[in-house]
């Protein structure tokens, strides 16, 4: 029972990161109708930046801030410099450009920083805290959970309570109508990319210290898990990303704990296939419109 509780709690913390990264994919999908396969590679560039800043200043907070701001800047540069110029006639064009970006960015990181794993220190202790003799969460897991859920809460406020959020949502759902109402849709798409890339950078920054370390392929599995979460939850649904992320995190933690780490990715892919077969739009996919 103690083990179950521990695995459940750590699964929630990992799941919050998956949810955050999945949310970044949802943000891009809603802003530009692109499944951004380059999201992991873009987040990695920001993480290397954070790594360098922390190394130079000795401050985790400075590195974290640099990583998030760097992520936003990368999002801006990729949208303005690359994606805006990709043909919009077919969704496949954006996907192919994104895959090309993955190769370019990961190769550049490999050339500049080398293929070795670089240890990235967590800002808090990773030893579990015991509650009533039962191991629950480490201080770092708690930090992850608070930051991830806090950021998701802030994004929810941004999207539902502010004028900018209203314009972002309207531009995503109905770009032509939004233009006719005076909304500067191109600007909203750029902001969507910046927000999304910053959130993805934060997710990578939170997760990498708990893994093997920083390497040009550190976010590969994070992307696969988060992509699964986004598809399972529904690419249009931030709530789906949250619930799906926490669910996948707990499932991975339990499967890893009881059946071994090699089984976990298979379990996630089985979940992806089942959802695609049963409900292709995702569990929390959008409503059907009234027709009369």
């Amino acid at each position, binding site marked *: 029972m103690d083990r179950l509780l521990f695995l459940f709690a750590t699964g929630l913390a990992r799941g919050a990161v998956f949810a955050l990264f999945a949310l970044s994919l949802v943000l891009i999908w809603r802003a530009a109708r692109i499944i951004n396969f380059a999201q992991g590679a873009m987040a990695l560039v920001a993480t290397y930046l954070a790594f360098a800043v922390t190394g130079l200043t000795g401050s985790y907070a400075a590195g974290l801030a640099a990583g998030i701001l760097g992520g936003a800047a990368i999002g801006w540069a990729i949208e303005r410099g690359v994606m805006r110029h990709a043909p919009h006639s077919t969704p496949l064009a954006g996907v192919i450009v994104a895959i090309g970006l993955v190769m370019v960015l990961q190769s550049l990181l490999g050339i500049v920083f080398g293929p070795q794993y670089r240890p990235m220190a967590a800002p808090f202790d990773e030893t579990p805290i015991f509650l009533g003799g039962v191991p629950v969460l480490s201080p770092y897991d708690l930090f992850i959970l608070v930051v991830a859920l806090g950021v998701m809460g802030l994004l929810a406020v941004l999207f539902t309570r502010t004028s900018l959020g*209203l*314009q972002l949502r*309207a531009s995503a*759902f109905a770009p032509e109508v939004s233009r*006719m109402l*005076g909304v500067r849709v191109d600007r909203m798409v750029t902001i969507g990319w910046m927000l999304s890339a910053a959130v993805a950078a934060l997710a990578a920054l939170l997760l990498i210290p708990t893994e093997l370390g920083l390497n040009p392929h550190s976010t590969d599995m994070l992307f696969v898990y988060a992509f699964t979460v986004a598809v399972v939850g529904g690419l249009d649904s931030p709530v789906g990303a949250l619930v799906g992320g926490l669910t996948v995190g707990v499932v991975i933690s339990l499967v890893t704990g009881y059946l071994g780490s090699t089984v976990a990715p298979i379990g996630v892919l089985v979940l992806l296939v089942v959802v695609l077969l049963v409900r292709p739009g995702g569990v929390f996919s959008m409503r059907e419109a*009234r027709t009369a």
Partner: protein
Amino acid sequence: MTGALQIEALTVGYGGAPVLHDVSFALAPGEVVALLGANGAGKTTLLRTLVGLVAATAGTLRLDAGDLRTLRTEERARRGLALVPDGQSVVAELTVEENLHLGALWRHRGRARTRAVDEIFTLFAPLARRRDSAGHQLSGGERQMLALGRALIAEPVVLALDEPSLGLAPLVVAQLMGTLREAARQRGLTVLLAEQNVTSALSIADRGVVLDLGRIVADAPADQLAADETLRHAYLGF
């Protein structure tokens, strides 16, 4: 801004196939003009060109002597040019209130925006009862009311409407046209109303412009058009 709209020698085509040929007419400030014609006459293309969703091949578009063709769609909206497109222009995922706020965003801020939304709810009472309903939950008539209210809330100087009566019951059409005429009169709006429902359109218009296969075939006062039997039979189908 007074709302004087001038269309001169406008030519528009899709993929090299011309849809509008050398179209010229003007709307005086506060004038209500019905744009009439059968399916495929070019009414929708003309309205979409006006707001910048379709690029013109040649010609000029001027609003109060300012050149519109150099402006993007969103900038034309901010100059006071509003289009209520046909079909489903309500943002289905947003609530009625959010749709109205969206229309008011660049024009009003803070409390002024809330007041403007309340004014639209006064003008379209049925919408007030659906304030928190999502766009996709509305009936066809409610959607059309919302689209019109959302255009009016930005206080445009020129309001273009594309087939607002499409798919609506005659009673709803009559109400909608009445509200439109009243709003235009009260606000001094210049209105360009594209309609296949000729009787309804001419009942509230000062003037009518008839398009046939992308060319203007008549431009005359509304009562004169309604009385011209030859024209009615040839181009308006009644």
